[in-house]
């Protein structure tokens, strides 16, 4: 039972990342009708916002390391620690959560430039062309990051206070072996908050209502004198911010590298398709579902019966779901049916 509970937590954790990326993908597809293959790259760009922020905080001077005697060695000492001996280390410790402050405006800007500069020219073009151009853009972004930051993953650490693990078992009256890292729990909570915020925005604000109306029937909303294109641009920027924040907060779990977006993109598209094209709820549901399925497939007992199943389970489940429900879990009729 303990083992199953832990795998569910693991699955939710993984699923949270899938769900956040898939949510953005679906939002863009539902509003703009764009199949955005650059969305994974936005997740990666968010992660590199955290890296950049950390690097800015860590700007250092070199001081001689006198403990090394065989040769002249230097160690880096951040200016922040020199100038603010008390506050500096605290700021450095909280670099990842603080980088959200930088990621939000940066991701809005990236989203705005991307939509106005490129994506808008492909609104009425076939999906195949959209896929080609956005995939090309993803490769460009990837190579830019590789050129600037190098090819290797850059580890980011969670604040010290969240570095250990929580005794989750004690909360639910389970065994003492049910422990889970604090930062992963924070990520889960954070994802839940973001998903809630996006749904609330669309459901409970007038702005969101217009966007939803536009998703249903863009022309009629336009005929009412509403500039739906502008609103969609803002929705695109919002999707960009969601992907970016998902990336920022994921950095202590997985050290970011230039390729991380591609790794998540393929799985996120599977999530979107399984959830149902254009369905926000479907994307979230499928994200968590596939995360949990993948986690269970990694269990030793399962792998003993089906070796290597953890590598293919997501695709296998996707095939089965699409065979039974061709529009996905919550797909609507008429979306991408042609």
């Amino acid at each position: 039972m303990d083992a199953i509970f832990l795998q569910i937590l693991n699955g939710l954790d993984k699923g949270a990342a899938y769900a956040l990326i898939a949510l953005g993908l679906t939002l863009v597809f539902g509003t703009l009708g764009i199949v955005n293959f650059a969305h994974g790259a936005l997740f990666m760009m968010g992660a590199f916002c955290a890296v950049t922020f950390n690097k800015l905080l860590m700007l250092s001077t070199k001081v001689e390391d006198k403990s090394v005697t065989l040769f002249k060695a230097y160690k880096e000492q951040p200016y922040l620690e020199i100038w603010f001996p008390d506050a500096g280390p605290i700021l450095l410790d909280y670099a990842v959560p603080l980088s959200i402050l930088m990621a939000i405006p940066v991701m809005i800007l990236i989203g705005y430039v991307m939509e106005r500069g490129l994506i808008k020219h492909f609104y009425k073009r076939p999906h195949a062309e959209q896929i080609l151009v956005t995939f090309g853009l993803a490769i460009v972004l990837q190579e830019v990051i590789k050129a600037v930051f190098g090819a290797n993953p850059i580890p980011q650490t969670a604040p010290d206070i969240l570095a250990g693990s929580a005794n989750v078992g004690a909360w639910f009256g389970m065994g003492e072996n049910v422990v889970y890292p604090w930062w992963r729990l924070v990520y889960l909570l954070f994802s839940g908050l973001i998903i809630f915020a996006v749904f609330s925005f669309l459901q409970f604000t007038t702005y969101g209502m217009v966007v939803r109306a536009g998703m249903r029937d863009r022309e009629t909303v336009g005929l009412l004198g509403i500039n739906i294109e502008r609103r969609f641009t803002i929705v695109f920027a919002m999707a960009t911010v969601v992907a970016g924040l998902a990336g920022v907060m994921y950095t202590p779990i997985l050290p970011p590298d230039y390729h991380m977006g591609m790794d998540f993109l393929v799985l996120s598209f599977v999530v979107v398709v399984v959830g149902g094209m254009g369905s926000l709820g479907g994307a979230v549901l499928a994200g968590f579902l596939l995360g949990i399925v993948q986690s269970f497939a990694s269990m030793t007992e399962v792998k003993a019966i089906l070796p290597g199943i953890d590598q293919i389970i997501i695709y296998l489940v996707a095939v089965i779901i699409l065979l039974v429900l061709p529009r996905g879990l919550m797909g609507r009729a008429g979306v991408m049916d042609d």
Partner: protein
Amino acid sequence: MTKDIKFDFSRRGLLKAGAGAGLVAATPSIFMKNAWAEEFRNNPGNASEIKLGFNVPQTGPYSEEGKDELRAFKLAVKHLNGEGDGGMLNTFKPSALKGNGVLGKKVTYATGDTQTKSDAARASAKRLIEKEQVLMISGGSSSGVAVAVQSLCQEEGVVFMAGLTHSNDTTGKDKRRYGFRHFFNAYMSGRALGPVLEKEYGKERRAYHLTADYTWGWTQEESIKNTTEELGWDTVATVRTPVGAGDFSQYITPVLNSGADVLILNHYGKDMINSLSQAVQFGLREKQANGKNFEIVVPLFSRLMAQGAGDAIKGILGTTNWNWSLQDEGSQAFVKSFGAEYGAPPSMAAHTCYVQTLLYANACEMAGTFYPPEVIKSLEGFEFDGMGNGPTLYRAEDHQCFKDVLVVRGNENPTSQFDLLKVVEQTPRAQVEYDWKIFGGELGPYKV
């Protein structure tokens, strides 16, 4: 129109030709060392320079090792050409190296990126051989890569001086005449680590293995499992994980309820950094199981990994090929030289690559030629000292190097930013030697 061909031999001419042929046949072989000049791949002939190929992981999960390997190669080239302080050229014995290049030719190099992938490494090595026309290939930080490149080098007739490769297969079932390994292997890690594990953790333990799913991981798992089971430990499970998995949480959570009290991480490079950090995040270091402290063992350690893993590495046992803290003359000379050049001590990957380059150069000097079969014969059974870890042998039968093996522990009280591993024991060479036949394989021919 035809021209009459006329053979006009005079008796005197015939005698002269016969005398000339006799003289050539009677010439001592020392004057004929370049007689096979045209018979081997990338023969430098009369060129004033030779080129060596350094094929290292510049990207991928083992790229930190790759960077350090490249630094070491560059330093070795510098020293071979008589620049710098000479490093281990001053301590290596018996040595035929003079610091004037190799066989009087200046050493240059070309580099390749293995990407820590066998197919990419093979393609990169092929480019180095065909386009860059290198005489020897060295480097690499993965056994999968080493086996693939070694096999290519055998086909191409180019000597391969392996970099970091720890799988038993490299000099076992996949050994090749053209491949040489200075690094120790998983079997030797097991032999060295076993007594220390028994002393530290006792005879009644239950071990859970997480293993990188490729040749190195499999052989290390097998070797460590055999060693610990000989001690009396139970093996609870052996779980394979994909290389570069990044997030190991789904593999670590089952450990918590498995009944195991030791986690053995058969991972290397960034995989090891991630899996160890995540195991610590999941509270395994603070855990009690079966009435004992839960322990984590990393059978193959490196300082670079320790650096990446930060505090997670403290107190963890493993083995290493070489460590910069060794006090022998050769190690100190190398650390001094490398440190002065790059501002940090060399890793074990760097040490191996530096030594391999010098050993190849020395073998050419000893053979008096670059002709690979003669260079190989010089390396086979070669005994040397002054390159760290005490007297060392390149065994002729399988091209495996034998020297002392270091058992290390993540340093809990480091005295400097580089003092991350503490040598617990220097296991004597005799304790890790084995019969070469146990791993099978055939070296193959000298001439290809």
